[in-house]
């Protein structure tokens, strides 16, 4: 399975601190995506990074990808209480577009005000 695995499983930080979540996967990928899920709700797409990219930014989010290590990290800077959610990495199969995503188990982030 090329299922991604997030690390840590749970993370608790104070508002204003940075949060870093890591993801490892097993096989070649076309792209890697990060999604957020608030409790009891659907997943919201955050950012996509392609296999030929190493770093990408979106607002307070920074994603890195190391294909040699088959790993990615998501950094949320200056966290807010509203960032409290579960964060999932998802990988798409190599050489294919718009294919199913394989999700990790997620990191539960708690931001304490």
């Amino acid at each position, binding site marked *: 399975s090329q299922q991604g695995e997030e690390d840590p499983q749970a993370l608790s930080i104070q508002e204003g601190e940075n949060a870093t979540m890591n993801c490892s996967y097993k096989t070649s990928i076309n*792209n890697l*995506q990060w999604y957020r899920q608030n409790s009891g709700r*659907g*997943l919201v*797409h955050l950012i*996509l990074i392609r296999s030929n990219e190493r770093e990408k930014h979106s607002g307070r989010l920074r994603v890195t990808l190391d294909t040699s290590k088959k790993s990615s990290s998501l950094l949320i800077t200056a966290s807010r209480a509203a960032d409290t959610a579960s964060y999932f990495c998802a990988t798409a199969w190599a050489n294919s577009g*718009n294919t*199913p*995503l394989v999700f990790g188990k997620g990191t539960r982030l708690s931001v304490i005000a």
Partner: protein
Amino acid sequence: DARVTQTPRDKVTEMGQEVTMRCQPILGHNTVFWYRQTMMQGLELLAYFRNRAPLDDSGMPKDRFSAEMPDATLATLKIQPSEPRDSAVYFCASGLGDTQYFGPGTRLTVL
């Protein structure tokens, strides 16, 4: 904002009953996915369609689950008969490029 919609949002039923979940993908999206989320297994793909044609349903128990797209604005997932182990949140997602847009999910409880 265009959104994926799913009905019902919650469903409680008894073992053996038929369950039908519906999804309206975002207009213009050509790919529709059904995922299931449980605490134990996380998010798993059940089936997906492109241009209404089923491409992969290997994640579904074939004897009880069926997925269809009667038209471009409706995808359905049926379970017959339902079992307690089917209790989960079922998500529909649609997409045109690499990004997938998820609906709010149907929380199914089979007693």
